[in-house]
């Protein structure tokens, strides 16, 4: 994956240099106070190469991902701005892409988005004018061919220079199709892909073997999603209530064997062991640490997992 930089951002440079990349996640607040974003950015800065700024995650109204991205970048943290297809049509999304690029965003990660029935405005109308793969291709064409979806040309200096991100979930069904769905995203133009939280390492390995076989890891960077389990309660909740997440019984047993007040510590230990294994796994280019509302733990975890210091690309 040599050649010219797509965005020239930090994440892209780290990945292209062949270093094991680290991304984090920053959930914007459910209000307008920028201090909250700055505080979270403080935990992430220097510990990750870029932080995903979520777009109304779980369909709950939050500060817009573009605004929060800008605030985070003001603190020196590179944003990986997320954009979901749930809330906007192709007019608004292309417009936001142009706006984000103009404001200095380097990475844009495109998702279908959680259905609004999970969120705090289940009465909302959803949009889904495009799906995530439609939008990934549209963004690639805006950047590389310099055209909007309607064919209108963008001037040379007016193309959005964005490193294109996508998500993949090896744990959803049908299992055999998951790598093909990732292939569709790579074919459409995804430069890097981040996975859903991994707990079932066996299934993840099977997925990656398939992705390697399909040649996907030669064409895009695959990052592995890691979220430490805070407690046995959280593990059970995620297993039973969150669609597309698998938590093996062995992990639950392991947490059960530890007193309640030490379970978070054990969860972090499990995550660090996972990261060790992921570093050695063929086709894995980095980890994506999702610690939403647990951002202050990032520095400790990154240190414990031996991911410091972050390279200066």
């Amino acid at each position, binding site marked *: 994956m040599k050649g010219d930089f797509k965005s020239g951002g930090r994440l892209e440079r780290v990945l292209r240099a062949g270093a094991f990349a680290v991304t984090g996640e920053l959930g914007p607040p459910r209000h307008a106070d920028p201090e909250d974003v700055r505080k979270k950015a403080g935990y992430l800065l220097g510990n990750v190469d870029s932080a995903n700024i979520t777009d109304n995650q779980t369909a709950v109204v939050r500060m817009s991902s573009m605004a929060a991205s800008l605030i985070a970048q003001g603190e020196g943290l590179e944003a990986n701005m997320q954009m979901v*297809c*749930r809330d906007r049509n192709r007019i608004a999304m292309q417009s936001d892409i142009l706006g984000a690029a103009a404001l200095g965003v380097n990475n844009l990660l495109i998702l*279908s*988005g*959680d*259905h609004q*029935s999970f969120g705090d405005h289940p009465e909302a109308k*959803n949009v*889904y*004018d*495009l*799906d*995530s*793969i*439609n939008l990934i*291709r*549209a963004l690639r064409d805006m950047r590389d061919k310099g055209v909007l*979806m309607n064919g209108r040309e963008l001037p040379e200096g007016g193309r959005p220079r964005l490193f294109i991100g996508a*998500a*993949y*979930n090896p*744990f*959803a*069904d*049908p299992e*055999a*199709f998951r790598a*093909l*769905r990732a*292939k*569709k995203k790579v*074919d*459409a133009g995804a430069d890097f892909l981040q996975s*859903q939280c991994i707990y079932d390492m066996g299934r993840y390995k099977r997925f990656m073997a398939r992705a390697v076989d399909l040649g996907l890891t030669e064409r895009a960077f695959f990052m592995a999603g890691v979220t430490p389990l805070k407690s046995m309660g959280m593990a059970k909740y995620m297993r039973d209530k969150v*669609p*597309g997440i698998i938590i093996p019984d062995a992990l639950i047993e392991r947490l059960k064997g530890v007193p309640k007040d030490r379970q978070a510590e054990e969860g972090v230990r499990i995550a660090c062991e996972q990261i060790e294994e992921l570093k050695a796994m063929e086709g894995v280019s980095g980890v994506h640490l999702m610690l939403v509302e647990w951002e202050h733990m990032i520095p400790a975890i990154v240190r414990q997992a031996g991911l410091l210091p972050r390279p200066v690309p």
Partner: protein
Amino acid sequence: MIIAERKPMNEITGFIEGKAKILVVGCRGCVTVCNAGGAKEVEILASLLRLGAEKEGRGLHADELTLERQCDPEYVEELSQLMDGRYGAVLSMACPIGPQYLARRYPEARVFPALNTSFLGGALAHGVWSEFCQACGDCVIHLFGGFCPISRCAKSLLNGPCGGSEGGKCEVSKETDCVWQLIVDKITADGTLDAFMAMDLVKDWRTSRDGGPRRIVRQELLR
């Protein structure tokens, strides 16, 4: 066909509050087939309303009538003798296309929809109906193994199942099949998976409701 469902009783009783004489009009079209607004349901609703009025110690005169189709001026005309102001309310038990035809033809009448159009679909079993189409105006099911991802995927995805598909069910409801599981099973079995992988479909929504209210004019049928 159109699958409809009767509105909650309290909403319907609200429509006829203070009226002594009402007409309940059914339809022999889709709503008869889906047991929502045919002659039988007209009879049930009229009886329920009479009973309710009786309980409250007042009389209610409720006439019953079921037309061949309410979305057809020819049949709507059959009501012309009755629409002389004798009814305080007309409850249409057709899908809400029917009451619009009635209200247009009989502007003096107070017409209310007794049903909600729920969706376009069909029966899965006796008493169970499911959505199959969203009238996007440009059918593409042949590209998806004969299944409609526009109406049957909660996110109208065109390129495969989202990350919430689990055990064949949709992330939005365990009661609902994930249509993408069905599509993937089908195209894997029938050998069209490669074509699907190469496909890059972006929907043009102009033919859907997004283009504004739709209308078809067929010149050869104009008289």
